[in-house]
């Protein structure tokens, strides 16, 4: 059985991104833009995605994102 979880977009949620891909998340009444950098870091910082929170990405190349979770 899967349980909801939260955390860093790439470090915890294992989102697979390429250099200069953008992630958008609604914060402070507007879309914040975050950029995944070629060295694996983020600008300005890695987004923390909360449970049930939406985000979307703008990619330079298509990607597959598969996540398996198990109940602790």
């Amino acid at each position, binding site marked *: 059985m899967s349980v909801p979880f939260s955390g860093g977009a790439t470090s915890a949620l294992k989102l697979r991104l390429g250099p200069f891909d*953008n992630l958008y998340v609604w914060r402070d009444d507007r879309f914040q*833009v975050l950029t995944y*950098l070629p060295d694996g870091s983020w600008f300005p910082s890695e987004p923390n995605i909360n449970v049930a929170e939406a985000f979307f990405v703008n990619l330079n190349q298509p990607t597959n994102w598969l996540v398996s979770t198990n109940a602790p």
Partner: protein
Amino acid sequence: MNRALAILLLLFSMSHGLAQGTVNFANGAAGVDAPVWLDRQGQALSGESWRAELFLIMTDGVKKRIRDATPFVNDRIPGYFMGGLTVVPEVAPGRAVTLEVRVFNLDETYEGISNPINVVLGGDKFPPSNLVGLRSWIVAPSTPQLSVLSTDGSLILRWKLEFQRAILESASSLLQPDWKPVLVDPQEKSGMQEVKLPATGEGRYFRLRL
């Protein structure tokens, strides 16, 4: 009831009227990969002295700075700046604008201007637009333009404000020039450095030393 509806409509139109367009001020983003190079040496800009600023090109051609100097990322990703979300003042989301990026170093000895970029602004309920269409460009040694104006018995010498460390010098001849600093402090006026001198005595030559 009608009055309440009118107030609601007024508030709605006011909030939309106040909405401002946004862009993602970065030369590395989805659909944008435009590193900045030093001269033609094939070397991407790195180090803490490089800055990028964003200009809106108005319909009459006048450039308006809308984002102050943004540092480059770091030496691990040379050639790239990341300014992030940037508001374009007094332009509504969804409007098309033309933007330009200027890159320079802190002592203003190098600069480079990007190609113009036409983008439709994000903002309101849309994410900021990326600078799609921005191409790589180079920075080269910059030279200030010195202008001279003679008026009312005075000589007014002007140069761009960015060259604040430039020293105004004068000489009486160019054959064996005796360049000496002009001992008048420049004043900031209309985005320019300005020195006013009495137009008396013999002719002199002026230069800016960087």
